[in-house]
């Protein structure tokens, strides 16, 4: 049998197995899912992959709106404002045939709250999860939590019986040292079932014949072959040569090449990620600057001058090849609290910037070190290089220190940087998430990504109070007030919102999701 006839035979067998319309989607992106254990790693490629196999109570559609998934409806309890009630979908089964009910939800949420879980912060306010009956769930929080459902969009449901039978009750823990069953196997309710998995090499999924949403979603892809391809040039070559059908993370310099190739398309959409600079404004003196005995960044006029010196349009045109949206606030446009006026507020004005510098007492500028990652965001190092040149125009001599992310981010957690680049995505689509991590004073529980040393107890109190404000209009008002302070203080220098690029065969139909998290059940194939 020649190779070709063998291939025909193989694909014919596959057709028979999968019904009349067998469509395989060969999908590649830079990284692999780190683990199939749904609560062990809160990381983009890992949860994106889990979404194909497992499901959450609520999920987001393409526009970012919350839509029903395993829960059909949800609302705060009428008797107790601290309780959210979820009605579960009936008649749903796991891949192994076990029935999905409230017992599994209680188990999964409790599992996600254990110390080894990477999702426990999102459930930090949860006091108890109860199952009054087979298809109802009550989540009690330690105070009213108006955005509880927003925190559940990556909270995957496991089968309690399966976990117990396979010694997977505990979240995978690194110290334990043993290979956990749940890291390599999965039993979800989702549209695709796991067929085989070789970490970092290839994972094969096949359509779940008994999926509850068979009639609701296109589900035209019947088989998924997922291969991580780390090297960007190789990934693009694989798409160009037709070895894969769909790639994420198309490098900006290859966009035209892909879009200009017959039979291939690039789809673009704004991403849920904003890129900005942070500054050490809290310390009395900086270690990395040329000014002795004072901290120039403590002066809001200096921070404003720096923001005015950055030409975001030039960065967009030259560094990003048009693939970015200049930003004026550190919230992506999908997020509750985003304000069009604020996001358009960043202007370039060198004269005003120089005047502000002079007013602040630094007419001749000063020297500063900028810490920048070089393997985390799109063209991160090039953006920093551009900023160095722009800041030099108002007399600030910036020494660029670009490092791999594994070395860059510890500088932020250890407060060893005075001027740094950071990018931020908002999975809850609510400003509170931004405030908790980036605005609140750095402490044990809040502000873990805030390396500005900003300390404003009044603002901190307002941020903490957001968590239990159930009156949504009043809450939005408070969010707007907090944003006003953040903007007035020029706490951060926003640069731009990243743009997502997916490359695919022209026959593949999909809408690019701002989370960079494709859900294959929505894909159509022609």
């Amino acid at each position, binding site marked *: 049998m020649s*190779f070709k006839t*063998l291939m025909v035979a193989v694909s014919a067998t596959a057709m028979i197995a999968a019904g009349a319309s067998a469509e395989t989607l060969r999908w590649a992106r830079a990284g692999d899912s*780190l*683990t199939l*254990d749904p609560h*062990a*790693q*809160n*990381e983009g490629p890992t949860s994106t992959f889990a979404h194909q196999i497992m499901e959450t109570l609520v999920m987001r559609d393409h526009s970012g709106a919350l839509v029903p998934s395993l829960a059909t409806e949800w609302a705060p309890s009428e008797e107790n404002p601290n309780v959210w009630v979820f009605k579960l979908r009936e008649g749903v089964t796991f891949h192994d045939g076990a029935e999905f009910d409230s017992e599994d939800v209680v188990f999964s949420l409790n599992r996600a709250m254990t*110390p080894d879980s*990477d*999702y426990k*912060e*999102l459930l930090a306010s949860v006091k108890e999860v109860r199952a009054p009956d087979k298809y109802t769930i009550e989540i009690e929080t330690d105070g009213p939590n108006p955005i509880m459902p927003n925190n559940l969009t990556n909270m995957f449901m496991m089968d309690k019986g399966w976990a117990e039978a396979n010694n997977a009750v505990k979240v*995978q823990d*690194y*110290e*334990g*040292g043993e*290979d*956990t069953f749940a*890291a*390599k196997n999965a039993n979800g309710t989702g549209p695709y079932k796991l067929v085989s998995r*070789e*970490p*970092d*090499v*290839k994972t094969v999924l096949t359509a779940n014949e008994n999926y509850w949403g068979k009639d609701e979603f296109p589900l035209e892809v019947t088989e998924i072959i997922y*291969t*991580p*391809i*780390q*090297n960007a*040039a*190789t*990934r693009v*070559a*694989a798409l*160009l*040569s*037709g*070895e894969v059908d769909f790639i994420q993370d198309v490098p900006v310099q290859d966009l035209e090449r892909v879009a200009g190739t017959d039979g291939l398309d690039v789809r673009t959409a704004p991403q849920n990620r904003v890129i900005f600079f942070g500054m050490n404004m809290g310390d009395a003196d900086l270690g990395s600057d040329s000014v002795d005995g004072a901290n120039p960044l403590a002066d809001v006029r200096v921070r404003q001058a720096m923001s005015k010196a950055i030409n975001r349009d030039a960065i967009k045109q030259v560094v990003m090849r048009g693939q970015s949206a200049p930003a004026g606030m550190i919230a992506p446009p999908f997020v509750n609290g985003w304000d069009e006026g604020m996001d358009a507020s960043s202007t370039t004005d060198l004269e005003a910037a120089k005047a502000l510098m002079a007013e602040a007492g630094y007419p001749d500028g000063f020297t500063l070190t900028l810490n920048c990652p070089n*393997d985390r965001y799109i063209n991160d190092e090039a953006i920093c290089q551009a900023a160095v040149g722009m800041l030099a125009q108002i007399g600030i001599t910036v020494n660029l220190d670009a490092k*791999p*992310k*594994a*070395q860059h*981010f*510890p500088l932020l*957690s250890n407060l060893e940087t005075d001027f740094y680049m950071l990018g931020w*995505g908002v*999975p809850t689509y609510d400003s509170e998430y931004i405030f908790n*991590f980036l605005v609140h004073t*750095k*402490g*044990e*529980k*809040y502000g*873990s*990504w805030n390396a500005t040393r900003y300390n404003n107890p009044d603002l901190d109190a307002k941020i903490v109070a957001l968590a239990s404000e159930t009156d949504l209009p009043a809450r939005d008002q408070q969010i707007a007030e907090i944003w006003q302070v953040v903007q007035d203080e020029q706490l951060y220098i926003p640069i731009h919102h990243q743009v997502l690029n997916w490359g695919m065969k022209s026959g593949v139909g999909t809408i690019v999701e701002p989370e960079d998290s494709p859900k294959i059940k929505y894909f159509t194939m022609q």
Partner: protein
Amino acid sequence: MFAYIVRRMFQSVIVLLVVGLVAFSMFRFVGDPIDNMLGQERTQADIDRLRTELGLDQPFVVQYAKFLRGAVQGNFGVSYRQGRPVSTIIAERAPATLELAFVSGFLAITMGIALGVFTAIRRQGIAANVIMTVSLIGVSLPTFLIGILLIYVFSVELDLLPSFGRGETVMIGNWSTGFLTASGLKALILPAITLGLYQMTLIMRLVRSEMLEVLRADYVRFARARGLSDRVINFRHALKNTLVPVITITGLQLGSIIAFAIITETVFQWPGVGLLFINAIQFVDIPVMAAYLMLISVMFVTINLIVDLLYYAIDPRLRVDARAT
């Protein structure tokens, strides 16, 4: 003899220990794994807890001692990135790298010797000069560029060979092989050429210059005077005497083919230990990095040990020295 072997073994162990110590003292400069391991929603408390749990708050000497204690029992710890035992992961990945290294080593030796002999015999020919010129590319172009060029020509433009991966593999016991399927063999071609090109040109140039030397030797001239055919002179007498230094170099190069497959594996997404190592560096997966570096140093130390022992067997002067001291 026995004392010599023991002394050499002892020295090898010291080399290994020093390599490990240097590696561990370097890991702190690679970065901090904590940020990669915890999600965006981590608090300072999480960071501190995980750091203590993994023992990363301890001085590197203590971490190294802990690693050694596990390593002598065959336990290299659990990968931070994959959450699975490092020994299992390396065992899974090793066949891919070894098969690639074997094929490219084989290509390099056969092609290198054949072309070397050819260019030596037809020293003035056009073909030989073209080969010599082209071989400069093999020595001077970086591996990743050759890989990308091959992908561009043979995958994107000509659509002949796969640009990434190993194709279909077949499991034989614990060994996954790509030798038994058509797609597996096709997938081997480009990475094997990329990885072996440098070694091939090296061997070719070595064979050529040795061969030219030998062809000028008296016994070749004598053979010619005896009226032996060119074939017999070139291949029976000249080539055989050329091969002694070639074998020495090839042995050492085989080690570096395995050790430096990293770049080729990254370009072709070849699922071997080199790609594993690159991923480990980016993630600061200390257990994997440590195990890989130890493994590579064990390999080199073993090769050197064997070479030393062979010298001892071959060269009587070493024996005399050993007795004198």
